[in-house]
């Protein structure tokens, strides 16, 4: 008899002929996740098991952050010969619980002498006899104890819901424009959750933004990397472009033109890094540069899909997500990500594309972009 973790996976179940590929990826990620706590990982009977870890709580925390994992339960693995012993163990696991419970049984070993309803009834009766402060409620119990009869017997009570989604690296790679605000980490998380690998681009406007602002962005990337693994962050020097825009373009278009440059540079870096799409944290109408017209105007400069998973979310919904993911606290640090010097007083909310394009003609785009890419710093995170 020993303690193990029982790891259930979600959507991978739906896969047909590709399922082994997805499962292999998932098992690899679970292995990587528990490496620090020396867990042993294997796949059997439609479950992933983890054993021999040094720290159970930490192992659960880590596994529940692996995309593709649906839930994690600490479980007891034991011989199934003695039903009496199984019941005894079940009662022991319920001892500290209060309220109502029910027993769930699953029997994949059909040669086992008792069928599932019998197991439920017998084990339930035993627990009732031995843990008198519990009562049974089969419809809406406070606790569910699961008894699974496979090659061995597995008993589990507690369940930690995990992030779900698809195993990392099963759906290509995308490049996240990471600003330091609340929205972009959430957007990155949502796309990564679909099994998409990430790289990040951050625009740094020294001296208008400080060393601390950069540190903050790297910390956000590090938090994301807890879910999606090691990734590259491109820190692009952006001051010169902002200054040129500020000097040469009409004030109401400056933010929009700046966004267009950000997209152009991100596309180049994305292609270099093998990414096939861009991700931004934009949400319709949140600020002037996120009106429908403005989004259209920024999309136009790139030739790859731009994913905006927050596009239909309210700020409060985004914040709720950020808190769940664990990026909210860092995003709320006060270091500015984009200096107010460059923010126009009256930005255009319904820009006309041809006017924006004409305004941009005054800039030596190629030289500016080349210089920015040349000066880009690459930081590996995670």
């Amino acid at each position, binding site marked *: 008899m020993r303690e193990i973790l029982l790891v259930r996976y979600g959507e991978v179940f739906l896969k047909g002929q590709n399922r082994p590929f997805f499962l292999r990826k998932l098992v690899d990620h679970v292995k990587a996740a528990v490496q620090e706590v020396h867990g042993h990982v294997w796949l059997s009977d439609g479950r992933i098991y983890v054993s021999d870890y040094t720290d159970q709580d930490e192992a659960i925390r880590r596994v529940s952050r692996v995309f593709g994992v649906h839930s994690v339960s600490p479980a007891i693995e034991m011989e199934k010969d003695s039903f009496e012993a199984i019941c005894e163990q079940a009662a022991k696991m319920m001892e500290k619980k209060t309220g109502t419970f029910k027993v769930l049984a699953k029997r994949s070993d059909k040669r086992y002498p008792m069928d599932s309803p019998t197991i439920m009834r017998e084990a339930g009766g035993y627990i009732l006899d031995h843990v008198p402060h519990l009562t049974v409620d089969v419809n809406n119990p406070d606790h569910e104890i699961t008894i699974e009869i496979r090659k061995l017997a597995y008993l589990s009570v507690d369940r930690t819901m995990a992030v779900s989604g698809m195993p990392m690296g099963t759906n290509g790679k995308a490049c996240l424009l990471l600003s330091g605000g609340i929205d972009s980490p959430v957007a990155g998380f949502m796309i990564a959750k679909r099994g998409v690998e990430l790289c990040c681009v951050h625009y740094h406007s*020294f*001296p*208008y*933004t*400080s*060393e601390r602002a950069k540190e903050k962005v790297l910390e956000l990337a590090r938090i994301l990397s807890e879910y999606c693994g090691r990734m590259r962050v491109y820190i692009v020097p952006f001051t010169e472009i902002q*200054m040129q825009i*500020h*000097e040469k373009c009409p*004030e109401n278009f400056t933010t929009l033109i700046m966004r267009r440059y950000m997209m152009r540079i991100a596309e180049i870096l994305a292609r270099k890094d093998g990414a096939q799409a861009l991700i931004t944290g934009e949400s319709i109408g949140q600020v002037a540069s996120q009106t429908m017209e403005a989004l259209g105007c920024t999309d136009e400069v790139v030739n790859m899909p731009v994913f905006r998973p927050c596009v239909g979310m309210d700020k409060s919904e985004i914040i709720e997500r950020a808190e769940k993911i664990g990026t909210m606290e860092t995003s709320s640090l*006060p*270091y*500015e990500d984009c*200096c*107010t*010097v*460059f*923010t*126009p*007083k009256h930005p255009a909310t319904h820009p006309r594309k041809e006017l924006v394009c004409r305004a941009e003609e005054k800039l030596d785009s190629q030289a500016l972009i080349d210089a920015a890419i040349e000066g880009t710093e690459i930081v590996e995170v995670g």
Partner: protein
Amino acid sequence: MIYLDNSATTRPFDSVIDVMDKSMREMYFNPSAAYKPAVDVDRGMRACRKLIAAQLGAQEDEIFFTSGGTESDNLAILGYAETLHGGGENFVCSAIEHPAVSETIRRVERLGIEVRVLPIDRRGLVDLDAARDVIDENTALVSCMQVSNETGAIQPIEALSALAHGISPRVRVHVDGVQGFMRVPMRMGKMGVDMYALSGHKIHGPKGVGALAVRRGVRLAPQMTGGGQEKNLRSGTYNAPAILGLGQAVKEMAGRHEDVERMRAMKAHLWALLSAMDGVRVNGPMPGEADAAPHILSVSFDGVRGEVMRNALEGAGVLVSTGSACASHKQKVSQTLRSMGLTGEQADGTIRISLGLMNTMDEMDEAAVQTAKMAALLAKYRRR
């Protein structure tokens, strides 16, 4: 790199590091123990007390070691408040106290003590006329910093104490001396100061150590209970390496009085260079005035944000801070500067340059050149 953020912290003297190194390698004994090596450490600490006391016109047994300025302020304010019996007393502090004082003094409201604030004038000094209206016969404590961490204004402690005692004879006076200790003179008896808080790392000593000087006859309730160290006022195993390091820093500083004067000259020189620029002003007393500290210079630039100026100077190899380092992670506009009559924009356009004993005249020249260069560059990109 030119380090001009000495009010945030200073680089320790080499001799301080040596003393601490030796203390940890060889003299690691608990000074409260009974055997000879421990007694030797205790003796070393006593020498430190003596050195500090001498700087304050105090006695050795009036010095209590703490973990630094913040703890000293907490011990003084909360420790004193706890000895009162809720007879309608009030505590008074200046409008520009460091959070170690202003946040702490708010906590005594829970003990039924009223908290009142002393306004300051446009030069950043406590307004003594206004103080007459704030202090009354129920004022039990007046707390005022010796030197403003934001502007370097030396506060009129002696006059304030005399005024307070004239109105409320039994009043106690607490001074946060963190920015003043050993750069601006302090005689506790003559100036009417009952409690004085100081910190090691602002005078080229170690971080994590400081002291509270408490005049005999002032009773305080301990805020840290335990083994009864420091005559029961501050329990906890002595941080002997840091205390010995603090003592060494005091010893070095005491032998370098001419360096403090050199610092004053450097500050004046730097301002002379900076004042040649357009749209620059000093906040607080002008360099050279009697109530200007020798080491802190607060400067505002028209149309350039202090935060951006600080970043730009960092890029040019000059480290300064905006406002004060302790407040700058909150990124709020400085209340000190606002209460001196600066507009939000002016306060936002402020940097604090603070000197230490290790700075040189050449560094002032270079810092001035870089500041002028950055100001010119940044002014081009003002908000339209």
